[in-house]
């Protein structure tokens, strides 16, 4: 490590130049230091709420990943007995006379559905955006807390309730919902179409409606805080890219989740009140239904109007985190800061006009698809700009290759690999063959699954000291990184080939088709890789919880020598974040190795003739 001599006495600088908001002049009924319940459970402090989101997200991630292991066992080892899972899965493991246990197809589909729902919404939306928006927006902006701490608390508890309802649905005798995380009607609308479409689907809808409430409460809060609670001098163009990403993510969420909710309400009415928004001309279970005039495609429009922005809700926070982590550990300004902001905005805007690229083969008028192809492929331009800027940020740096940095680099690799396959799928002509094959599974798992996780891990390892005052273990972190990096590619790279062979996704078994059944070895390989990666994640979980109490202690306030304001708060977090005045800001967030100074924090005033914005 290069020996870094640059030090700043932030206490003095903040005391002299900071902004006095008279926060500590009057009593706040200081919730932070009151009872256990109001401190740790019904907390209104953004730092606690961030940790609540994170730990809840980790628990859901373990559940969702464990589900994927079970269905991967079915796909990789269809001949092996799963009787040993019977104590856990009960009647969903059907044991024949020879004692060979098989996973019931209904439950296979339930697992696939729950895996998707949990990972997309509970882990990569709430767990990622919820954690880091909460932690970093006030801290990096120089705010005492969120604009509405109370709504912030409600946001977490609505998410928690959504989780409780979803968790309960796992134990229904008819099983949880099993019609795919996209929940297309009529399969999701008609209880007679699938066992999971009964109570399981009802609870799925209730859970996700609660979740939408949570996202909206959180999102409104994030937007308000960013717009109104920036400290003195923190102009929009001085905000770190993390904040830009969380801000835009919240805007996207607030604009798109209500559309999903409207789709859910119509679906609820179709299920319960006999309406026909999404149903028409259906004959099922020997009976012609008295439902005409609706269109199942309408639901798909409503769903994907959220569904596509949703993938950016997942990936933008990861992008913001990675931008920050790359700059801090490369000891360089992020390359092309303004271009990065504009590309975030461009991606956000475009994310609203590309939704029907999920529906090229859904019976939409093919003429309409022309527009969606054009808009979809335009997204590749801002995405490419971001990738080039990240790589150029490394150029000429003095890079610390520690765990957060490795995950940030891994993120860029994953985003490239997964993003490029999007160029295939966004082109409707290729999508004719690739739609709903394993090629799609490979694409979105790499680009928004693994990549988003990498961004999340980079953020956790990087801000762990800020959250818990200790570091996570570096050796275990590196094992975690390499296991995940190599393992994730081992899982998802081969899926491209399976997809190119034409194998459809969401198949319980490939044996009935000559064209699909010749990949048994590859499927075995993928399953083994998935089990190893899962084990490596458990390593992370152990590291995470062990380090909370036993990790290496953070001895200085700013261990990464970063420029942003969160590192000026005391090591022991306090209510209101700063003990005295809040720091005022004089420059952008990326003054690394500028004019012979190793780094210049944002609260350091400009020298004569120095430019503070770039």
């Amino acid at each position, binding site marked *: 490590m290069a020996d870094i001599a640059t030090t700043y006495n932030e206490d003095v600088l903040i005391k002299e130049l900071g902004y006095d908001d008279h926060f500590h002049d009057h009593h706040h009924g200081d919730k932070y230091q009151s009872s256990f319940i109001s401190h740790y459970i019904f907390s209104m402090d953004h730092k606690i709420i961030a940790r609540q989101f994170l730990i809840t997200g980790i628990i859901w991630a373990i559940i969702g990943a464990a589900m994927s292991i079970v269905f991967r066992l079915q796909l990789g080892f269809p001949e092996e007995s799963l009787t040993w899972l019977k104590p856990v899965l009960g009647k969903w493991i059907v044991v024949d006379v020879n004692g060979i246990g098989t996973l019931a197809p209904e439950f296979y589909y339930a697992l696939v559905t729950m895996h998707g729902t949990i990972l997309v919404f509970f882990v990569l939306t709430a767990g990622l955006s919820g954690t880091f928006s909460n932690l970093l927006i006030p801290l990096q902006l120089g705010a005492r807390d969120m604009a509405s701490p109370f709504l912030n608390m409600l946001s977490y508890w609505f998410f928690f309730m959504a989780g409780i309802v979803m968790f309960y649905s796992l134990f229904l005798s008819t099983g949880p919902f099993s019609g795919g995380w996209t929940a*297309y009607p009529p399969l999701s609308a008609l209880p007679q179409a699938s066992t999971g479409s009964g109570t399981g689907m009802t609870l799925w809808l209730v859970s996700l409606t609660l979740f939408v409430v949570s996202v909206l409460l959180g999102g409104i809060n994030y937007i308000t805080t960013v717009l109104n609670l920036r400290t003195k001098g923190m102009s929009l163009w001085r905000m770190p890219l993390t904040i830009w990403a969380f801000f835009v993510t919240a805007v996207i969420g607030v604009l798109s989740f209500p559309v999903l909710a409207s789709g859910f309400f119509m679906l609820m009415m179709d299920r319960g009140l006999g309406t026909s928004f999404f149903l028409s001309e259906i004959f099922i279970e020997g009976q012609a239904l008295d439902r005409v005039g609706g269109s199942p495609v309408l639901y798909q429009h409503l769903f994907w109007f959220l569904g596509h922005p949703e993938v950016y809700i997942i990936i933008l926070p990861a992008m913001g985190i990675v931008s920050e982590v790359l700059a801090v550990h490369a000891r360089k300004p992020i390359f092309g800061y303004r271009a990065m902001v504009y590309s975030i905005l461009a991606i956000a805007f475009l994310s609203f006009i590309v939704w029907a690229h999920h529906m090229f083969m859904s019976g939409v008028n093919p003429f309409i698809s022309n527009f969606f192809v054009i808009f979809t492929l335009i997204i590749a331009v801002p995405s490419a700009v971001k990738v080039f800027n990240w790589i150029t940020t490394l150029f000429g740096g003095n890079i610390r*290759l520690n765990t957060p940095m490795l995950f940030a*680099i891994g993120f860029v690799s994953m985003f490239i690999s997964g993003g490029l396959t999007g160029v295939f799928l966004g082109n409707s*002509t290729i999508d004719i063959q690739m739609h709903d094959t394993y090629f799609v599974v490979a694409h979105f798992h790499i680009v928004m699954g693994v990549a988003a996780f990498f961004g999340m891990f980079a953020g956790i390892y990087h801000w762990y000291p800020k959250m818990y005052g200790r570091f996570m273990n*570096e050796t275990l972190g590196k094992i975690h990184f390499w296991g995940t990096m190599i393992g994730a590619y081992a899982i998802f790279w081969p899926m491209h080939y399976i997809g190119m062979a034409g194998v459809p996704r969401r198949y319980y078994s490939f044996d009935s088709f000559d064209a699909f059944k010749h990949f048994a070895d590859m499927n075995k390989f993928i399953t083994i890789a998935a089990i190893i990666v899962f084990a490596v994640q458990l390593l992370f979980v152990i590291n995470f919880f062990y380090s909370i109490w036993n990790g290496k202690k953070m001895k200085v306030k700013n261990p990464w020598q970063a420029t942003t304001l969160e590192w000026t708060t005391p090591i022991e977090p306090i209510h209101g974040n700063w003990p005295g005045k809040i720091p005022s800001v004089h420059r952008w967030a990326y003054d690394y190795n*500028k004019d012979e100074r190793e780094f210049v924090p944002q609260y350091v005033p400009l020298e004569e003739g120095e430019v503070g914005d770039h």
Partner: protein
Amino acid sequence: MSTGFIAILILVILAVVVVQIGKISDLAAKIRGEEEVAQQANDTTAVWLVGFMVLFLIGTIWSAVYYKDVMLGYGPHSAASAHGGEIDGLFNATLGVTFIVFFITHVLLFWYSYKYRSREGNKAQFIAHNNTIELVWTVIPAIVLTFLVVKGLVAWNNIMPDVSEEDQYLEIEATGYQFGWDVRYPGNDGKLGTKDFRMINLANNSLGMDWSDDKSIDDIVLGGTDQIVLPVDTTVRVRITSKDVLHNFYLPHFRVKMDAIPGLPTYFIFKPIKTTEEYRQELRNYPEWNEPYDVEDPESLPRWKEFNYELACAELCGKGHYSMRRVVKIVTRDEYETWLAEQKSTYMTTIRNTEDDPRLGQLLDVEIKERAQELRADFKNALDSEKAEDKTILLRHVFYDTGSAGLSDLSKYELDNLTDILKNNSGVTVELAGHTDSVGDDATNLEISRNRAQNVLNYLTNKGLDISRLSSNGYGETAPIGDNGTEEGRAQNRRTELRIISQ
């Protein structure tokens, strides 16, 4: 229970081991000096990153070669439809472009991570932005993507538009249901009849076809597991529908995929260019396709011989989603015509003359034509034959109202045909003979048979035949041709015959 306990124990031990690894590494770092350890770790990690890059990039190329058989457009995975080549070509063009980007960005990402790793005396440069280079890497992707978009949309707009009235095409219909497909052919008229989901009846009308629509009469429904047969080099428009939930009509070898939606028919148009047999012969050239079909049975036929095009479902539709397979067989046009001629219309085999038949008590044009042909053939045989017994023809479709001598409505078709035949054979004189079964007393039977024959004669003379060529007679129950002990035999005995007297 004990296995569960052991599993938990192993997990706990592993956790302890992991924590100890962490502790030891921390301790070692403390002993050797954190700075020095961090520097070493940095160097090691940098080397690992480059090593990973090399292996990863080699791995991507190696895997592509290893799985070359699934490369679109390559040998055993070439498209079997006219438009499929366009899709494969665009896929490969995109693959080329994206691989270049993938390769360059990955080399730079990992190489920079290695080259600019933190080292003693190294100092990072302050580079905030560079407008020229940013413009370059915005414009270049834009140009490349424009190329791909244009190429893609040209292909898309060739493939997807619907057929027009003037086009020559074969239209078939595929209807998905949980969990299978009904495939409907239009029959000789080339047109699919209308259908309505309210008319679906699982016993004899799985599609809800409207039997009163004349276009439905010759439609052929292939249910169950029958192979879908299609002619090569023919434009096929598949009308795609669903009965219950969403399905997707997916023909991987033909690059065909489209959702099946209840209440909203979709379509896909494609032209098969290789018969199943031709495709098999192509596969024969690849060693892996010469391996036995059943891996566990080395005696089984080679894979290429067992090859079939397949129809699959590609939209999650419930627990049996993975099993909606149908074999698609592409044959020459001649073979197709032969096959089609062998297929029986669903209406004629399952509905005709049942209580669900809206034409119950009516004759179809096709039946009238058939009967005319049949009668002409019988008449010609009788004329041509030398034997006296061959001179008698059974009028199969002449019937009377029960218990009386009045002609039934449908008899007129046969008698009209007979009128035409006799007009065309003006030198022929005939006798019309009535027969009954043995039920009832002899005198009554004789009487009724005479009256019936007389009524036939009257009908013919009313149609303008010369009375001098016709005579009528009743034989009662005296000349049975079947066993009067059975209902079947009695039905045979109740008949009207025509005997050629002179020609």
